[in-house]
């Protein structure tokens, strides 16, 4: 008798956890789905570049939650992000598909050749993270710290005065970002 | 002038895994000695067989895994596993019992999981559990202790060796005449037959505290265990929590019905209580990680040991209790990560 009760209890626990897992992966109701989209979006690099064929990171996260996109579509996130997405969504892990783009070997950021810039603001309108400052008929320049390397500003420039250059991150910046006390006495 | 460089720290304690294992083996010697005094030389032969099997199977596994025999064969961990398993087996058990159990422990419980430092379960207990489930009859045929009240014919060293290696007793003996259950086993049987605790304890197989002979073995193990604590090879959390929870469970049930349940002193000095508390549950690889986790882990072992001994299907529950809590270790670890300096909450 006790064996039967124990068996029933164990099977119910197993069944419940399976159900919970299913619900998390499929977003059984709207609130759960919204939470899932948030969790997916948190894993994405927020480059908003559109390489995944969606109009930004949140649309991609939404598609992933609905199951209409695969986990290997984000080159800026790389294999680390693909693996994290696989873990979150319970899908088999895979490498980023090169058809969505191949990242350069070092991180790149946009740079404007200021003498050549004509002040048309087309790149400013294209930048999804407000990393370019400037105004009509005034000099444009890229704020290096804010540029995510999405390259959306390159095509619109009518005079081709904007290009990608390797980013430089100092060791101090890296250490300072993670633990300020590492640099203290 | 130029110098060779090295990374700091430039001094480390000259401690090695093999040194630690050596101290554990020395601490087991009192247990082995008292065991031989009461139950004859069978344990010594079992130990030799176990150690030989352990080293041979370890060498085989290391060779298959392309690891350095010279480094890993000499780390002493296989010998400790072998000794612990031999201590759990009846002294007259046939040779193939200890050999198959040790081989399983080393090949499956240890190397199939990744070798030293990677075993999820306590290898000696896995070996014992496999033997117990597969060959229950052989594992429950113990000898009576060599005390005046139970004087039966004792086998000589040569006769013991022959029995173990051939599985046959010498002509002058029969199995019924020379074997007897362990005190824990006898207690279960007697209680099941309707005797009260006092009536069951009247049998000469029970001594002052626990089972005759067994209480001295447990005492010797306690001494070895205290030595390990003093040398800081093990820490107090696991032995104290296991023995403590075992004693608490026993006290509660004994208080409820002294006629049906054995008291804490009996439980602490019977079976593999001390061996489990100081030598088996303390296997650091399969135990919980943090101090608080170890308290929970060892308390669980104590409770499960009492439960299996009292209501379960086997006379001694230490082996299965340890294996069940080994299963629970990842969960325990997940929720007992200590708070880090400067953080408000636990990770």
């Amino acid at each position: 008798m006790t064996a039967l009760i124990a068996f029933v209890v164990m099977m119910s626990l197993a069944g419940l956890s399976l159900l919970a897992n299913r619900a998390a992966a499929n977003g059984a109701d709207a609130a759960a789905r919204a939470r899932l989209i948030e969790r997916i979006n948190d894993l994405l690099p927020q480059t908003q570049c559109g390489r995944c064929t969606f109009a930004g990171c949140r649309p991609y996260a939404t598609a992933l939650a609905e199951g209409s996109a695969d986990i290997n579509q984000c080159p800026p996130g790389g294999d680390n992000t693909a693996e994290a997405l696989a873990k979150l969504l319970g899908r088999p892990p895979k490498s980023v598909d090169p058809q969505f783009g191949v990242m350069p070997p070092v991180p790149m950021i946009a740079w404007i050749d200021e003498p050549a810039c004509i002040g048309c603001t087309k790149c400013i309108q294209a930048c999804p993270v407000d990393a370019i400052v400037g105004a009509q008929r005034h000099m444009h320049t890229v704020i290096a710290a804010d540029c995510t390397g999405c390259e959306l500003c390159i095509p619109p420039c009518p005079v081709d005065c904007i290009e990608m250059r390797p980013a430089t991150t100092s060791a101090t910046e890296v250490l300072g970002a993670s633990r300020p006390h590492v640099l203290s006495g | 002038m130029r110098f060779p460089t090295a990374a700091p720290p430039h001094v480390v304690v000259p401690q090695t895994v093999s040194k630690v294992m050596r101290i554990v083996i020395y601490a087991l010697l009192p247990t082995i000695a008292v065991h031989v005094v009461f139950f004859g030389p069978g344990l010594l032969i079992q130990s030799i067989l176990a150690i030989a099997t352990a080293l041979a199977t370890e060498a085989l596994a290391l060779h298959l895994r392309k690891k350095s025999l010279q480094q890993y064969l000499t780390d002493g961990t296989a010998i400790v596993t072998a000794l612990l398993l031999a201590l759990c087996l009846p002294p007259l058990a046939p040779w193939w019992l200890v050999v198959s159990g040790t081989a399983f422990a080393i090949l499956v419980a240890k190397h199939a999981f990744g070798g030293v430092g990677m075993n999820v379960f306590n290898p000696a207990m896995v070996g014992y559990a496999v033997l117990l489930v597969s060959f229950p009859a052989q594992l429950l045929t113990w000898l009576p202790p060599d005390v005046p009240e139970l004087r039966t014919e004792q086998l000589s060293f040569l006769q013991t060796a022959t029995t173990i290696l051939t599985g046959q007793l010498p002509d002058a003996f029969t199995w019924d005449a020379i074997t007897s259950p362990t005190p824990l086993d006898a207690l279960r049987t007697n209680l099941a037959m309707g005797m009260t605790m006092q009536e069951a304890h009247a049998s000469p197989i029970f001594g002052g505290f626990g089972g005759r002979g067994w209480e001295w073995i447990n005492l010797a193990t306690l001494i070895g265990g205290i030595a390990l604590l003093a040398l800081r090879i093990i820490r107090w959390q696991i032995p104290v929590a296991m023995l403590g929870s075992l004693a608490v469970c026993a006290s509660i049930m004994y208080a409820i019905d002294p006629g049906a349940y054995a008291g804490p002193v009996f439980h602490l000095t019977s079976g593999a209580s001390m061996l489990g508390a100081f030598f088996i549950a303390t296997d650091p690889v399969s135990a919980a990680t943090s101090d608080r986790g170890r308290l929970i882990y060892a308390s669980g072992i104590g409770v499960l040991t009492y439960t299996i001994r009292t209501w379960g299907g086997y006379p001694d529950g230490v082996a299965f209790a340890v294996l069940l809590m080994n299963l629970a270790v990842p969960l325990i670890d997940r929720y007992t990560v200590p708070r880090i300096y400067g953080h408000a909450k636990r990770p």
Partner: protein
Amino acid sequence: MVRGSSARGGLRLEAHKERSTRDPIGMAAAPSTAVLPLDQHAGGAAVPIVAVGDTVAIGQPIAEPAADTSAWLHAPISGRIVAIEPRASVTRACAPALSIVIDNDGREMRHSSARAIEDFLSLEPRELREHIGRGGIVGLGGAAFPSLAKLERGAQASAPTLLINGAECEPYISCDAMLMRERPHDVVHGARILMHALQAQECVIALEDDAPRAADALRAAIAQTENGRIRVQVVPTIYPSGGERQLIASVFGREVPFDGLPPDIDILCHNVGTAAATARWVRDGEPLVSRIVTITGDGVARACNLEVRLGTPISQLIAECGGYTPRVERLLMGGTMMGMALSTDEVAVVKATNCIVAASALDLEPRRREMPCIRCGNCAEVCPAFLLPQQLHVYARATDLDGLERYGLMDCIECGCCDYVCPSQIPLVERFREAKPRLATHLLARDNARAARLRFEERTARLQRLEAEQRQRLEEKRRQARRKDA
């Protein structure tokens, strides 16, 4: 560390300080050539303000602070600048670092423009802090963090407590103990200056219980100043009680938040050497051009503490101490627990050089062959940051950055206690040092991603708002037009 509710872990180690503390502090000879790396402090490297061929005097500023956290550098000898070029430097583990090289003209000319301020209380705290910075003062406990930046941060706290760190916990190093024993007035005067610069209410000078003469000397010096706001506190001699966070926990029973600094709990910590250097600069007008260095170890004939000019080659110091013994095997800058092994002695003393150990087999205990972790937990027992090094080891091997973050890799102070006690002889500190930059880069990328997302979302909201306003205006116009028509 058993004092305070928050001090745990640590090791009792043999001090090995008797040899080097037998004789009083000596004066090392000035070097014939001084090599001064420009990056000998934390933060941005200093920028030269002299050129090759210039003649400089002792105490003359030769490099100014760079834009971010940085410090002044002054000439320790008088003579000619012969080069500004990369030279082997302890700041880069004996690889080349841009350095100013001065040839000593032997005339010991002193720079005249430094002012000696007797009454520092007449200065505003902010003035005093800036003045301290101009002396090239950096933390002399080993990290060489620019003191001006530290003081500015400390001044943000309200009525902070000043902690002067004399708890020299690492074996072999005795320069701070000798400083406190022989020059306690410098230390106390420096403490008073720093208190005024910070507007601190009280000051605690902490040291270990194995330096009773130093404690007595400090107490006598404090009594002479009749300053009731400075006191001495003795802590148990446990390594690493001198770690800033561990000392604060030990002395005050409070913990510095992991994502903050001591000023966040109204405490600021400075090394005793820093305090003494501050006194020499403010009171006597002598900027930081020399420091006390312990030379010790079985690999050197005589062990002692010397006051050494910056830029002195270590080979010269060894020669002044009688040269190497034939048993010498390794040369360490620092102590035996955290010291850096130098590949050559032809490198110069910098502001962070507190000790040189010429180590023989007697001083060293090298690691044996590494075994897998057996999860014994010795490491967790001794960790002063309350970490689980066995878990960090597992995650470092797997490069599991989430696991490393969760188990607090960045909270590791690299003291080496875990490494020291490991029976599997695992080089834990090395593994953690390898993993830290990887985790730091990952955390930086994550911070940048979060900031980028905020900018994107704000931009999206702004564009939507502009569009909505545009539509509203159009609607208004259409309505007005319709009204006109009607």
